[in-house]
């Protein structure tokens, strides 16, 4: 394969059969349409290119492409804009996955996050940021190119021209009995459904939305889809909701058992599909008939690690390492740590022979603002790493540990004592008590 531009690599994604041993459906062949293998990583490469192309090809390196997007469309548009010397700005209040935000920054995007809702409701408020956004776009001097994915028919067309026909071609000209897609802008489900119905009106289309109180990045809840211009309830034979838990279950199955490095919406589509098809599959038992179903895997897993970590930390569990301060119980810390009052500590640091090394466990910024003269700063996270390995100081050096209120330092004092250090003490009440006693703190 040899191309002149990466945009030529958009589309023509594989259709891969899911092993029946995994999904357990006996009479239905289930296929995954791997949109995650588009060059920018998602199903949105197609509409992004189709929507932006007329703007970009006419543009002479002027202006900014803007879109309300929380991830994949933004990613594709940022790359496309960059290739054509334009800037890209994403406006959203849904960018809740930090890796995606950082990835967009890497791509050179500018991100504007819409504020949360007002706590004190003002029903006459016309000052909502989305209104400002649309006003800025319609300003005659504006150099914004708004791709408008929620309302732009070219979004749907990209799938009617590409995704849909590819599925039919890969099924040897047949249309699947079921087509399953998650609904975000409704572009992929609407475009594909249109083409499939034209071939065979008997196809059943299942639209999946996020459970109302839940959050699955990239898809909408049943209320939110009503705000999408491309959404027409008539497109779907059924609309069902999926929870974030099901999405992660599905994602893990696709990753660990099928070798498909899917993100949460692919997982949601898989899990929703299997759940929906189970009854139909049972009815087919004994009839000797076979059916096919196709679902879309929208994007890849890598960008969602923190999403997974938050909801299913055990999936990313690290093996336990040596003895840490956190593994001591409160009672152990109390019993094994030596503590020293502010008054004694002042004397010790002034007159001790040898003088103790004072270690301040706070962040560098706080340390820079005010600290005990002569102390060194080792922020707790770093200190934690250091003491995992052993003793970071000589046993001949006495040590005074200080943290804000004497709670963290107590644990570390206990731990280091356990490790055999003869004279580690924790400053009782911490830097706060030191300050409250009127003891000097310096700034550098």
């Amino acid at each position, binding site marked *: 394969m040899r191309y002149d531009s990466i945009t030529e690599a958009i589309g023509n994604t594989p259709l891969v059969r899911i092993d029946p041993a995994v999904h357990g459906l006996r009479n239905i062949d289930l296929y995954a349409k791997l949109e995650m293998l588009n060059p920018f990583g998602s199903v949105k490469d197609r509409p992004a290119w189709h929507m932006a192309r007329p703007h970009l090809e006419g543009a002479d390196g002027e202006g900014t492409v803007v879109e309300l997007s929380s991830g994949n469309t933004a990613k594709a548009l940022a790359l496309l804009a960059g290739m054509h010397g334009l800037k890209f700005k994403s406006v959203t209040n849904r960018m809740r996955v930090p890796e995606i*935000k950082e990835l967009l920054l890497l791509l050179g995007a*500018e991100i504007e996050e819409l504020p949360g809702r007002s706590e004190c409701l003002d029903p006459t408020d016309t000052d909502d940021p989305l209104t400002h956004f649309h006003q800025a776009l319609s300003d005659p001097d504006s150099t914004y190119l708004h791709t408008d994915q929620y309302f732009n028919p070219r979004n749907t067309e990209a799938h009617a021209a590409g995704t849909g026909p590819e599925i039919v071609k890969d099924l040897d000209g047949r249309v699947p009995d079921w087509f399953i897609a998650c609904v975000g802008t409704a572009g992929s489900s609407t475009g594909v459904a249109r083409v499939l119905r034209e071939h065979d009106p008997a196809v059943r289309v299942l639209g999946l939305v996020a459970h109302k109180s839940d959050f699955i990045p990239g898809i909408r809840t*049943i209320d939110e889809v009503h705000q999408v211009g491309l959404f027409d309830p008539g497109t779907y034979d059924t609309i069902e909701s999926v929870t974030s838990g099901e999405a992660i279950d599905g994602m893990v199955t696709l990753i660990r058992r099928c070798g498909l490095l899917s993100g949460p919406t692919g997982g949601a589509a898989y899990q929703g599909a299997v759940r929906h098809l189970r009854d139909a599959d049972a009815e087919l038992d004994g009839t000797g008939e076979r059916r096919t179903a196709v679902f879309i895997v929208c994007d890849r897993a890598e960008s969602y690690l923190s999403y997974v970590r938050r909801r299913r930390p055990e999936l990313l569990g690290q093996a336990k390492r040596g003895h840490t301060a956190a593994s001591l119980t409160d009672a152990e810390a109390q019993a094994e740590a030596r503590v020293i009052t502010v008054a004694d500590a002042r004397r010790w640091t002034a007159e001790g022979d040898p003088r103790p090394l004072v270690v301040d466990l706070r*962040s560098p910024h706080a340390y820079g603002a005010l600290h005990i003269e002569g102390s060194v700063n080792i922020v707790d996270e770093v200190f934690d790493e250091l003491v995992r390995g052993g003793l970071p100081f000589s046993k001949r050096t006495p040590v005074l540990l200080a943290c804000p209120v004497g709670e963290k330092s107590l644990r570390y004092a206990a731990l280091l004592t356990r490790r055999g250090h003869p004279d580690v003490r924790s400053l009782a009440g911490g830097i706060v008590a030191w300050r409250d006693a009127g003891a000097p703190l310096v*700034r550098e």
Partner: protein
Amino acid sequence: MDVPLYLRPRVEPPLASLLRAQTFLHSLVDALGSPLNVLIPEVVAENAARFRAVQRRHHLAGRVYYAHKANRSSSLVRRLAAEDVAAVGIDVASLEELRHALGCGFTGDRIMATGPKDAEFLWLAARVGATVNLDSPGELEQLAGLVRGHGLARVDVLVRLSGFESAAVQGGTGTRLLARRSRFGTPVREAEALLSALERHRDVVELTGVAYHLDTTGVEEKARALEQCVLFMDECRARGLAPRALDIGGGFGVGYLADAEEWERWTTALSEAVLGVRPPLTWRGHGYGLRNEGGTVRGNAALYPAHRPTAGPGYLDELLSMPAPVLGRPSATLLLEHLHDLYIEPGRSLVDQCGLSLARVLDVRPAGEEPDRYLVRLGMNAGDMSLEEHGVLMDPVLLPRGGPADGEEEPVGVFLAGNLCLEADLITRRLVHLPRLPRAGDLLAFTNTAGYAMDFHAHRAQRQPLARTVAVEPEGDSWRWCLDEDYWPLTSPGGTTA
């Protein structure tokens, strides 16, 4: 009628047991008239303790300042005045609130004066040694003039900052968190002028802290503001000022509804009604800000997020646990490591579960053409109980007179109208589902109204009586009550036993 679209309130003890004391509540309304507000002052003290517990868990020193604007009652303020002086203060936003707080037992050193201030308010605040939360450089100049001109003692001040979003842009590209525009506070980018003014007036004012109050439910915006205030305080320190407290305002929110699913079902039904795929849920198809544009729902629902998983002290905990966007440490750690105290100013959330508003049913009739729909006229108006005005949707609790009649339990949809001769005087613009049709003489109890709903909009239009307010406390199986203005937090409060 299909499934009744209930939005039942979250009611916790002791409010729950007060609601069960139907005979008592009926006798109160018989004696004092409809509408009537009932407050349980003990609850405000418990709520303050909950907020303090969260602060303590994060090892933070500081104070809970009750945002007086949430309710004009005396019993709540007096009950809080009786709490630990180091832990509980009051935030007053007007001269009258300041006078009220002083009269209820708060000494000046426990009072924070916020909001826009006129000369009289500034003078009295300075005179009694309250902390002045400065809204603008202009206020600082005015205060400094007053202190000098009247030979007053040096005044503790906080500066309230705003406009945190613009300061977050780093070098052209990056993430910008837009914020709802605020008329209050001094934008961070203008803080330089403020700092030099503070230095110039050091003989008459002492900067003891920095403040913000953001009108948003978004915890990320608050974490960002918090961090920027910490950075700003550092700048103050570098210039020889010594602010010590960070005041993060209020806005911790209340979860009004008991059941998430009821809220979800109702809001979905609203979208469907706006699209016309189901009959309207509201008086004349009111859409609460949503509209139908060619089959697509547009606009924002002007509704308080009435069911929320975290609110009040839980929300504070979430904010304090959230990593600061630049420095990365959790907000609480940031404050603690910089040796800062935390002030909070909860209003709505401090009076959560503190009271209810009662209205007598005056009249029940069919609501025009629609079958199975009724109009219930109440002895109160939309000003007396303004949950709806604040976008809080919550069903009232029906308190029948003389106990439930048998055989009539049949859910019914009603519109609740007020006692003014105005088409617009609806207590709810929403069809409210009740477990049965009320009758004249029954009471409706609107629960959890102490935060802004009870008397925020009350007025004397058309010479209708204003709600009286009583304070109650449990006494054995019964309740003791007194007029709000007669309540004092003494071991044996005055008043009569029911």
